[in-house]
């Protein structure tokens, strides 16, 4: 893309990463600044060792001379260990003889602390715990694996470094702060992108009142071509804080612009100044977010402590996503119309928005509207039908299910998200008289 970072498979200083701690137990977004740290358990580790490593690398907390540090794990081939839920399947049947009480483990907390002081690694502690468990041998092989995994998470936590793409960002917010993204689930977001035909060189109009996740998702798909225009209907622009979590290159950032609906109307373009103010205000929010996405509730404050460390590199960026659209661009849009539209505005009336925005779309442009409630979409669909503005109208709801696939223990996950929202999609038709001669 003309920006080596964007397609790099190695992390770099200043890049945004997703840290997956203990296989999804906790997810943290962080920026790899020199001063950035991560608190795991009671230990504070510098993120510096991560810089320059390939995405996908695993780290383990080790106790060094200068305190705990992240140490790269060299993965071995062979079996992964997956989580098992609370199901009584065939293989579990012979656990019944087992009484798991506190006397089963002869190592005490003090013993373990002492081992740590002596520089024993987390993995060695786990092995010691197993060796000193009187019940381990009586467990089924499956239960043994579970035991090992549980101890490993506690005494030898792993940190996996992931590149933040839209799915993982959306999933992390959905799990931890669903309200900030209007409960938009990643599969619904994926449908919005398809239904609105987000493709290279498109100019996509978005009403994103879900923290910028839609704006970021569209920008990711555009890859530095076209534009995503984040439109606000009133005078106040909408927050785009989530856009910062993506590792967008300058090429991509400059394709993310803001615009006020009024600016698209003939002879109006007065709200720029105020928007600029809002922009600088929202930076603070942003940084909190970057450090704050932690899946375990009680860790929030801990992770937020990274924020001061991370402020520097963000402001280093030459080009900021979400600048106000230039008059030239606005002029082009007035002439050509947008190539598609996505609306994710949980608190606004859908039909009112559509009435205002549809005139700014090119004919044959597809659109997709996300909402948490069915009724507003039903009414909007009815009105679009009645006024013959759009065709191919459909309200759909995705239903997503994850499976546990393990030998003799395959079944859908016991916990699931029951709801990913509703989507109204359709295609605008040409209503100008000249075409209906």
């Amino acid at each position, binding site marked *: 893309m003309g920006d080596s970072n*964007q397609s790099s*498979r190695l992390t770099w200083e200043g890049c945004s990463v997703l840290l997956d701690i203990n296989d999804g137990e906790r997810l943290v977004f962080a920026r790899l600044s020199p001063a950035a740290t991560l608190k795991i358990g009671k230990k504070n580790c510098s993120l510096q060792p991560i810089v320059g490593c*390939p995405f996908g690398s695993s780290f383990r907390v080790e106790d060094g001379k200068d305190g705990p540090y992240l140490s790269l794990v060299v*993965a071995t*081939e062979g*079996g*992964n260990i*997956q989580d098992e839920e609370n199901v009584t399947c065939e293989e579990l049947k012979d656990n019944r003889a087992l009484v798991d009480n506190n006397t089963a483990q002869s190592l005490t907390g003090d013993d373990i602390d002492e081992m740590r002081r002596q520089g024993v690694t987390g993995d060695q502690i786990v092995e010691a715990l197993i060796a000193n468990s009187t019940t381990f041998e009586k467990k089924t092989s499956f239960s043994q694996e579970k035991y090992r995994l549980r101890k490993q998470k506690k005494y030898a936590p792993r940190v996996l470094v992931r590149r933040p793409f839209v*799915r993982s960002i959306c999933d992390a917010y959905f799990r931890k702060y669903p309200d900030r993204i209007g409960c938009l689930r990643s*599969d619904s*977001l*994926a*449908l919005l992108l*398809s239904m609105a*035909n987000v*493709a*290279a*060189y498109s*100019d996509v109009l978005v009403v994103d009142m879900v923290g910028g996740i839609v704006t970021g998702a569209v920008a*990711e*798909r555009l*890859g530095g*071509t*076209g534009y995503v225009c984040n439109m606000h209907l009133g005078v106040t622009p909408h927050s785009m804080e989530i856009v910062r979590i993506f590792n967008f290159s300058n090429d991509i950032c400059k394709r993310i612009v803001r615009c006020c609906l009024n600016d698209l109307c003939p002879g109006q373009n007065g709200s720029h100044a105020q928007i600029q103010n809002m922009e600088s205000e929202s930076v603070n929010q942003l940084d909190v977010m970057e450090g704050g996405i932690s899946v375990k509730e009680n860790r929030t404050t801990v992770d937020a402590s990274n924020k001061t460390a991370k402020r520097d590199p963000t402001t280093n960026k030459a080009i900021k996503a979400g600048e106000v659209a230039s008059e030239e661009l606005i002029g082009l849009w007035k*002439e*050509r119309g947008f*190539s*598609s539209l996505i609306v994710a505005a949980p608190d606004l009336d859908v039909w009112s928005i559509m009435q205002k925005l549809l005139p700014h779309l*090119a*004919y*044959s*442009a597809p659109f997709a509207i996300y909402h948490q409630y*069915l*009724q507003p979409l*039903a009414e909007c*669909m*009815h009105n679009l*039908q009645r006024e013959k503005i759009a*065709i*191919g*109208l*459909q*309200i*759909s*709801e*995705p*239903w*997503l*299910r994850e*499976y546990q*696939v393990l*030998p003799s223990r*395959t079944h859908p996950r016991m916990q699931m998200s029951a709801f990913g929202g509703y989507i109204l999609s359709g*295609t*605008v*038709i*040409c209503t*100008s008289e000249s*075409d*209906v001669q």
Partner: protein
Amino acid sequence: MIPADPSGRLSLLRRIQEGDLVIVYERHDHMKAVKVINGSVLQNRFGVFKHSDWIGKKFGSKVFSHKKGFVYLLAPTPELWTLVLSHRTQILYIADISFLVMYLEIVPGCVVLESGTGSGSLTTSLARAVAPMGHVHTFDFHEQRAASAREDFEKTGVNKLVTVGVRDIQGEGFPDELIGQADAVFLDLPQPWLAIPSAGKMLKADGILCSFSPCIEQVQRSCETLELKFTDIRTFEILLRTYEIKEVRAEVGEGDDGFSLRSPPRKKRQHSTEKGSAVEASGATTVMAKPCSETRGHTGYLTFARLKCL
């Protein structure tokens, strides 16, 4: 279908030209892809439509037949294409396609491998996701199916983004020249576990694989094979439920028959997608939505895995 430069985008200024592919929309469940050729006609139950009448119209226009029947002419998209393409095999639909494209982290510039090509329903969406500078290498066992796919990609104009190979991926694996080239691999094969080792070699470090299988036994066996070289192995299923809307009159007050506040629905279907029944304009009406009664109950399981970083 996928713009190769900024001028290719949909615009209020663009008009239908000779050689354009248009989607002729009769009804949500009745569409057809047509190449516009001056002098040609389209004949359907609404009459005869002259292509020459279409040229110069905007995309999204309503056009009429000799007997005043009408259709709409839409600009093609991968989603519309999925609804009109010829089914040479079971095809993938929008819910699975959208989900896997996002999960595979396919962005512009990516190199993606696919097997089999099938009817090319997914390929077109993959091409859109890697455009403008990425590439999709798709392979099918059947010589003829690959040839038909190539024709289709020519027709939809995604051919510059897609290379179709004829190859038995289960038997031979992907070609060696693609080793370490792929950001993502998609498998839709009867015995995906046979192709997984080769797929692993094609992937860049940290690359992702997706295998689509209708039967759980295929998933179980694939997962066993994936364990060796992959991590983050997760299996999903995604379905789409659609809703129909109905307008009902709200007769407030007690009728002869008790408390009938809502008149029974009249089933007067207009367009079948836009399922809905109309009620006369008299009286206050209210719109309600409910799930459509029938749906695809299963398409397949999507198993994702990421190449282990060694």
